[in-house]
């Protein structure tokens, strides 16, 4: 089960955060710590890293880091593909998604992510069906 899903930029500013487990003690510090761990890594490095009890899978798109964390029992590659799937869905919805899109349409991002990953589980992988719910609103 995925524990949290974080979108952050290179300056470690949280652009989107959703916890599927309980909230950490100090969310802001927690996010900062996670983001830092990912940002110091070089492009050639593996996209998996362990931070504390969480196993982190992240992917970099331009200046944005999509970071998924889980504790156990997830397939690393499946999560990588899931991230790709989310980003593609965002991309289709915003027509070339940018950081500004995510920043200004945070509610829409929440909706799309909700359709893709619900309660920490991959819910829907079909992009058309993901966006169906969002565009209907």
């Amino acid at each position, binding site marked *: 089960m995925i524990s949290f899903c974080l979108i952050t930029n290179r300056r470690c500013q949280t652009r989107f955060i959703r916890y599927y487990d309980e909230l950490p003690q100090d969310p802001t510090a927690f996010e900062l710590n996670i983001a830092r761990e990912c940002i110091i890594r070089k492009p*050639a490095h593996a996209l998996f890293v362990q931070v504390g009890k969480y196993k982190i899978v992240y992917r970099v798109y331009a200046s944005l880091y999509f970071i998924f964390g889980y504790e156990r029992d997830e*397939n690393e590659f499946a999560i990588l593909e899931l991230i790709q799937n989310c980003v593609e869905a965002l991309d289709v919805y915003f027509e070339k998604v940018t950081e500004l899109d995510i920043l200004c349409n945070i509610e829409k991002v929440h909706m799309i992510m909700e359709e893709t990953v*619900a309660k920490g589980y991959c819910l829907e992988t079909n992009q058309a069906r993901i966006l169906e719910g969002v565009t209907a*609103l």
Partner: protein
Amino acid sequence: MFEKSLTDLIRGIRANKKNEQKYIAVCLQEIRNEVKSNDIDVKGIAVAKLTYLQMLGYDMSWASFHIVEVMSSPKLLHKRAGYLAAAQSFQQDTDVLMLTTNLIKKDLASSQPLEIGIAVNGLSHIVTPDLARDLCQDLVAMLNHSRPYIRKKVVLVLYKVFLKFPEALRVSFPRLKEKLEDADPSVVSATVSVICELARKSPRNYLSLAPQLFRLLTTSANNWMLIKIIKMFASLTPLEPRLIKKLLPPLTSLIQTTPAMSLLYECIHTVITGGFLEAAGDSSHALAATCVNKLRRFLEDPDQNLKYVGLLAMSRLLSTHPKLISEHKDIILECIDDDDFSIRFRALDLVVGMANKKSLVDIVKRLIAHLVPADSNGASSLHEASSVLDPVYRTDIINRIVFICSQNQYRNVANFEWYITVLVGLAHVSGVSVGEILTNQLMDVSVRVKSVRPFAVKQMFRLLSDQQLLKTAKKRDTNIEVLSAAAWICGEYCSFLDNIPSTLECLLTSYVVDMPVKVQAIYVHNIIKIYGFWVNELIDEWNTELQTEFVKVTEVIKDKMGMFTRSADLEVQERACSARAIFDIVLESISQDLTSEQAPLALQGLPALFSLYELNPVAPKAQKKVPVPEGLDLDAWINEPLPDLVDDSESEIASVESPSFDMDFSTTTTANKKKKKKSRSRKYEEDSEDEEDKERRRAARMEALRNDPYYIMSDKSEKQKQAARLLDLEDDVDSIPIVKLSVDDFGISADNGGKPKKHSKKKSKGKRQPRAPSPPPPEYAPEEMPEDALASGSDQEGTNGIGNNSNTKRRGSNQTYGKNLQRKDIFATDDDGLNTVDLSTPLGADERLPEQQTYLSPEELRRREEARVRVERRERRLAQSASTTALKNDGERKKKKKKRKSVDESAKKSRKSTSTSGTKDKKKKKKKPTAAVESESEQLENGYTNEVPDMPTEDLLKDQRKQILPKLLLDNDQIEVHYQLSLSDEKDNGIPVIEAKLFIKNKSTDATLTNLHFTTIETFDFRYVEHMRHSTLASISDTFELEAGKDVEAVGYFAITGDIRRGLCLRCDLQYDIQDSSALNQIALEMNVQPSVFLIQDQPMDPTHFAALLAEHGQEFDYRDSVAIEIPISTETAVDQMLIDALSTITSTTQLQVVEVVPGAASLYAKSIQGSQIAGLLKYDLTSQEGRATITIDLKCTDDGFLEAFVDQLNSINV
């Protein structure tokens, strides 16, 4: 109108980068005002803005109530914002959550799917135990929602509900299970996710889903789902090893064909962790090799991600197939030097477990390279400066090195001089604080390994005199503690010291005062020790010249001891003072007789203070050998345990067992133990596995014994044995360690030139390896046993028990590394209510989802009241009609009495006779219809003797217990199975039990069927009763071997735990192997259980009681139905005979009793073992159709399901 929208807020924040805090503070104030507004739009936007600010780290818990208000907004947009805010900010203890129950309930019932979606999504984040309890019924009902969009979300939210309210799982599980068959793939996928997660917590409950999941595995193309299914199977296989056989083909084909790396990795991972390799039998090695080769491809790939998971999977495989992994040592070692820390750590985990005698030196050398700063000549340019300088990383590396070398009682270390050199080298690593672990290691090794002591003492002397190390004494992170080991070893084994005065000088250096007090205390003590030894040496060659020299040295020492006496630490001070007192005594005694050629008496006593006897390690078995004092009963409880604690003990024991020190074997043994406990039917497999296991363990013990410093006994005979063993060791080519000394890594030359190098004798067999000098076999110190040790058991015993103090300590500090190598324990229990939910027992009638306790509206109350009254009225009416029927029957009978033409019991013989016996008489006589003797005088009336056939009489009444013939259950080429069900006379804990008799026949002409056995499947209705066995016949839980043409009978008992209803069946799986064929034969069998099986036969009903029963309890027979059975009438047989036959068929198949036969009709009655009663009136009609007669049976029953089942059975009767 003038409020900021969310976009305005975001723009504003971006525009005010300089004073963001201030700007947000202003905005927050605005929001505070806006949420109080009466306009829901303003409120909604305020909450949305607040949610955004919450993401930036601002508190929004104060707005909980306003969030609930927004949640209840009719506008979808605001509702969304509200639910989102709730999901982001509510905690379990947020008090306003209580207010949301009805709101969410209403939203769930909405007609708009989007609204439901929002509510379901929101609920998953804010669900509390209370909400879960109140809403689970609605949610379960929504599983059948017409839209898949809703269904998939509900499935997922149910998981969260189960977490909070585990009771719901049991009741709603059947419904959840149905969703595996859903038409929509995403619903199925969501269900699989949830079940996978549930199964991870308690896999046992979900074994029954295996066939469904297997079908999905073979048919689905959704990789995400496949991964989940495979994961789930990985948690099921330990409980059901037979699954492995079935899963292997699809998994292997997936491994070979899938282009998706994620799926490939998952398959390999499952093959490794799911115990497939152990179960695959002959092909196990090939399979493992395939996996490892795939993994190697991962490692060779330039993609770092693949490297990472490859290493991860390999570390899982390490515990079972270390050999296969070490084949790829080269590439793994490369990964240690990888730039990427994620990969480096995974590789290190692997390397730690991979080390063996041969590879140890090389691995340690590579690890040490990580500690040494990069050279200028570029050899180590691979290492980033930061990584070398990072103290945490270096500490980790050092801990790993020590762990690798010391694991399994130093099994991997062939040359202890080399190890000492390594440890000394590690002490020089700057910027880390690993003094304690190094100290422990140095002391441990030199105490245990006798032969290394001279070398150790030399190295320790070096350390003591090492100015560089001494200078670090004042630094924060330092290994200065290591000097305490150095001092102690020099003191303890001072006989090996080359130059005692200079050693003493080192110990008295002025740097000492900067050292930790612990080290100082050890210094002081060892100064006296060495001094004492020195004195002892001098005594023999005592002369005046020597004496002057001696006095001089003593005075210097005493003088320098002064710095210790001023120490702030009490321990150091005390020791120093007593040391000085000793020196005073020595000096005084010498000064008393200056001219003596003999050493003073005081000096002669000095050595006895310290070196009376040698210090030996404690034998590992020592603790065990301490005899139990008389009268102490170790098995008796001190406090009686609470009953439920005892039940848990199994899992506790298991969890205690797993972090065992002996890594190579512990995992497999615990797994086995667990399996053994769990399943009795697989016992025969286990036994053989156990044997193998024992064999392997024995071999491992032998291996351990050879190298184990703990395994030397203190008595002489043991010593001799040890010597013999060492001799053996030299002959045994394989065990001679070939190690190249590589001590110059540190610039410290190992001083072992004086040692004669033994060359290994090579046998001509096998590959010849270049001759290499091998170190002398280490000589170990004898171990100590308690004086009153018990007579020893075999040496094999207690290999794993480690009784030594220093060892236990090490074990504690290194456990983290051991853990990495343990196979992941899928039984790991969380503190979770879900684990205790038992899905295997059927649902009881009283188990329902909790009704929500809400106040009813007045209308609702009135409606319910009306409904209640209506029911009552109906019941009353029924009761009345029942009594009138009874009366009518009576009346009719009286009428018939007039033209009474009673039929004798021998009506078949057509001997008619008139009888004057009255109705009362007749009734009385029927009390015991089964007794043939009494039936002699039984008479029945028949009004239409000639036109209408007689109703069958006594034979029907008495011969109801006809044996039902066994029914065919299975018939294929090899095997034929019949079954017969009956009610057993015994009960299991008061629960009625069905006896199922199976007749199994091997139909084939030549093949023997082996390993034939049934696996009973527990359903909600039947539970297999293991402890009941037939007195003569075999039990179906046995395993059979059937030769060609042979047959066997087996009996199983099933407790009836469910209600009797339509379509009940007993399920079991039949498995058998055909000799000389590898095909797996597994057939699912279903035995239909007809309601007639449940009927009690022993109490015949007499018509008086029957009438009374209907009159008194008529209203209980609330359910009615009627069945019509058509009988073709042929001209050959008499009509009456045919009707008699029909009735007898009906009664014999349904086991209904004929209570009474009247002209044209018969009344029937039966009672089930569970107390349901059924009454029937059978009538026939000859006129309706030409050539056909119709029998109508009107049935009344006290139980709905029972009646339904009964009607079903009647309808299937073929007359």
